[in-house]
């Protein structure tokens, strides 16, 4: 029980300081909020003596209060310093509030660059709409100094049958937490069809990259019972699909479509779904229709309101009074949940989802310590506590099947660590599910670096899962770009804790996703082979590499877009495109080339992408990237030779290659020189089309890119 604030604030400074210094017990959102109120309520002349009397060593409350008071005294740098010392160790429900206060002080001190990390951390707190609103305010303050630090920018228009003024700030904050700088345009309320047929000039000027269609079930106008149930559903599905088509034609933007909640408290009760013509049945049928329609419509993704409202609780999802007052939907308390769902879709659309889960072992995959307790002694299956770990492993296996790489990052002897994988009957995960196994006594940050390097992914694509708060704090501090999920103390809740962060969502599952772990393992074997073979070509010949080059097509587009958005290393310009943008380039008649390769050891799948844009007598290589798994096999030479051959046939005078250096694409910094291109102005290289580029004879290459509209046009 917190002391009465009015009594507390009347105490003399020293007494108050002693009082706060004695606070113990659970440190909650409420206690943090309480201290903010106390700081706010103190008279000016009492602030400085109190700040001086607070001893930081006495309690966490004393540290917080001191930082809050320093901020009130406008000693922003000093306050920021106090918060900074809490960055790595603060877990739980007060982390967001702490990060928010920290960012606020840094911004007030004019240190915008230092504020990005705490702002992003605060924005990941989906627990409070109020906090997210405050994050959004700070983001807008920071935006006055320059662009937000984000991986991607997105202009999102919301076209809706309900009020979204309160959703927008929450959504902007959550998106920032996911690496997106989101600008939101709210179309006038309840003009859905109108906005597509005759959009407001403001919407046209806004030029959205993405449009969210957010309608609630009332908009559908389904009666309790419909005379023609099938017709009613078909008509609404057709109308919604038409919106998508118009939207894509008019704005060329990604479409996000909210599906429909089945509202509670239907007058028809059970009948609502039991009757084929009842509203409950119609809504469920329509949702299924929309999933199917989205699957066959490029650039359309569903925001699963039906699911998220159920997870949240339907009865709390709506606020009947606020609906009547201002068409507020969903209830204010549900805004973070809806925002997280939309953010999850945006994260997937923009290719910002994580690629790897790095797993601790003791206390995370099983209970106990394998090095001490032995295979017989660890908790795994059998007992209720053991079942919790089995359930978590099942969740991780599902992640792996959906294309997420699993890595082990454990402080253990390698042999001890592998023993349960090989011998324990209840182990769900096998060694073959683990792409990279790092069990040693190195600090975890070093192993995480090795994992990222070994899997050829960025550290920002790694999610660290460890039950030990000390290890989590250490990884946060040394590798702030790694996503650290706070596992609760209760193992039964590990899977929900990870799932609720929505870090791994994807919109489609490619063949490459399904085979990713096997493919990485084959690659490690290839590296061993390379060690034993003589010359490079001898080694390559031994691999019997097949390469297929072909123009982009619908079937492969999902994978192509995925590669464009996540490849960082072998990527000459690192330009990112959404599926919609790639389709636009295809429609323009650009030269597109996708590369698929396989060898004796396995199929690496679609792992290379090229886009070249005609500019007069020049073919400009705008985008060229390859998955790092297939480097060092001279496939780059084959891709380039096909490009040059096409330029010659289509009678371009030259190929112009563009290079943009990034912190991650060092591997291609000399690529064009090595291929034999002539440097032109900085960042550009040239190859005259008349000069053929050699196709490496050691590869078996099939080139199907020497056709297409561009060629016949010219």
């Amino acid at each position, binding site marked *: 029980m917190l002391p009465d604030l*009015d009594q507390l604030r009347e105490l003399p400074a020293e007494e108050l300081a002693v009082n706060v210094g004695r606070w113990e017990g659970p440190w909650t959102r409420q206690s943090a909020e309480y201290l903010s*109120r106390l700081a706010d309520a103190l008279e000016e002349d009492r602030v400085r003596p109190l700040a001086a009397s607070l001893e930081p060593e006495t309690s966490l409350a004393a540290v917080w209060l001191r930082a809050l008071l320093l901020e009130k005294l406008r000693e922003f740098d000093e306050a920021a310093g106090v918060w900074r010392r809490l960055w790595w160790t603060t877990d739980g429900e007060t982390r967001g509030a702490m990060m928010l206060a920290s960012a606020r002080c840094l911004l007030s001190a004019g240190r915008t660059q230092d504020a990005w990390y705490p702002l992003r951390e605060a924005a990941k707190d989906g627990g409070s709409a*109020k906090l997210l609103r405050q994050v959004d*305010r700070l983001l807008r303050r920071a935006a006055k100094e320059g662009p937000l630090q984000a991986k991607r920018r997105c202009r999102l228009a919301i076209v809706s049958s309900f009020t979204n003024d*309160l959703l927008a700030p929450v959504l902007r904050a959550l998106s920032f937490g996911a690496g997106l700088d989101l600008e939101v345009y709210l179309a006038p309320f309840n003009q859905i069809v109108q906005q597509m047929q005759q959009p407001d000039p403001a919407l046209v000027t806004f030029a959205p990259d993405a449009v969210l269609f957010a309608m609630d079930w009332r908009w559908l106008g389904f009666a309790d019972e419909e005379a023609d149930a099938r017709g009613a559903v078909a008509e609404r599905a057709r109308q919604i699909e038409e919106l998508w088509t118009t939207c894509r034609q008019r704005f060329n933007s990604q479409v996000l479509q909210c599906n429909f909640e089945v509202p509670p408290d239907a007058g028809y009760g059970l009948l609502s779904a039991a009757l084929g013509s009842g509203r409950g049945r119609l809504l469920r049928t329509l949702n299924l229709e929309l999933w199917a329609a989205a699957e066959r419509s490029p650039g359309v993704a569903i925001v699963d309101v039906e699911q998220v409202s159920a997870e949240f609780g339907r009865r709390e999802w709506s606020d009947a*009074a*606020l609906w*009547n007052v*201002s068409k507020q939907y969903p209830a204010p308390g549900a805004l973070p949940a809806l925002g997280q769902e939309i953010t999850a879709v945006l994260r997937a659309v923009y290719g910002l989802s994580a690629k790897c889960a790095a797993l601790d072992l003791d206390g995370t995959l099983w209970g106990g310590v394998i090095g001490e307790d032995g295979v017989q002694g660890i908790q795994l299956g059998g007992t209720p506590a053991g079942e919790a770990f089995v359930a978590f492993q099942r969740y991780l296996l599902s992640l792996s099947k959906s294309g997420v790489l699993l890595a082990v990052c454990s402080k253990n002897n390698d042999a001890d660590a592998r023993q349960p994988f090989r011998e324990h009957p209840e182990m769900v995960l096998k060694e073959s599910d683990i792409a990279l196994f790092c069990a040693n006594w190195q600090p975890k940050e070093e192993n995480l670096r090795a994992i990222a390097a070994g899997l050829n992914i960025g550290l920002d694509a790694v999610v660290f899962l460890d039950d030990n708060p000390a290890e989590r704090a250490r990884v946060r501090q040394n590798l702030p770009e790694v996503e650290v999920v706070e596992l609760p103390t209760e193992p039964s809740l590990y899977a929900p804790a990870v799932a609720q962060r929505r870090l791994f969502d994807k919109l489609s599952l490619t063949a490459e996703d399904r085979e990713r772990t096997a493919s990485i393992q084959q690659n490690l074997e290839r590296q061993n082979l390379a060690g034993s073979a003589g010359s490079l070509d001898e080694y390559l010949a031994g691999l019997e590499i097949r390469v297929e080059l072909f123009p982009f097509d619908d079937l492969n587009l999902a994978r192509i877009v995925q590669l464009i958005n996540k490849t960082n290393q072998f990527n000459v310009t690192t330009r990112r495109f959404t599926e919609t943008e790639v389709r636009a380039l295809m429609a323009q008649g650009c030269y597109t080339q996708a590369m698929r390769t396989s060898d004796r050891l396995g199929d690496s799948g679609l792992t290379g992408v090229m886009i070249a844009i005609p500019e007069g007598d020049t073919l400009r290589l705008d985008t060229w990237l390859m998955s790092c798994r297939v480097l060092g096999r001279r496939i780059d030479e084959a891709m380039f030779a096909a490009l040059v051959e096409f330029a010659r046939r289509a009678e371009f005078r030259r190929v112009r290659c563009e290079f943009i250096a990034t912190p991650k694409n060092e591997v291609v910094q000399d690529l064009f020189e090595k291929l034999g291109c002539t440097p032109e102005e900085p960042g550009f290289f040239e190859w005259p089309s008349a000069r053929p580029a050699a196709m490496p004879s050691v590869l078996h290459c099939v080139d199907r890119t020497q056709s297409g509209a561009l060629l016949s046009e010219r």
Partner: protein
Amino acid sequence: MSLDTRLQSVFREVFDDNSLTLSGDFSPATHADWDSVRHVELLIAMEEEFGIKFTTEEAASPASAAQFKTWLRAKGVTD
């Protein structure tokens, strides 16, 4: 903490102004940025702070700081 202080801190948070001083006549008429969106934000923030629920009729009526205070007292919030 007194009702006045709590109410003021709700207004400060919603209007994003830490120096805001709340007087009884503080209303949409005296403050142009008290628009319909702010109004809903105020309702929500007060429901959260005081653990009460406004009726549809209250929520839809013209309000002022003094009016909110009357409603809150009627709902059992004490000074």
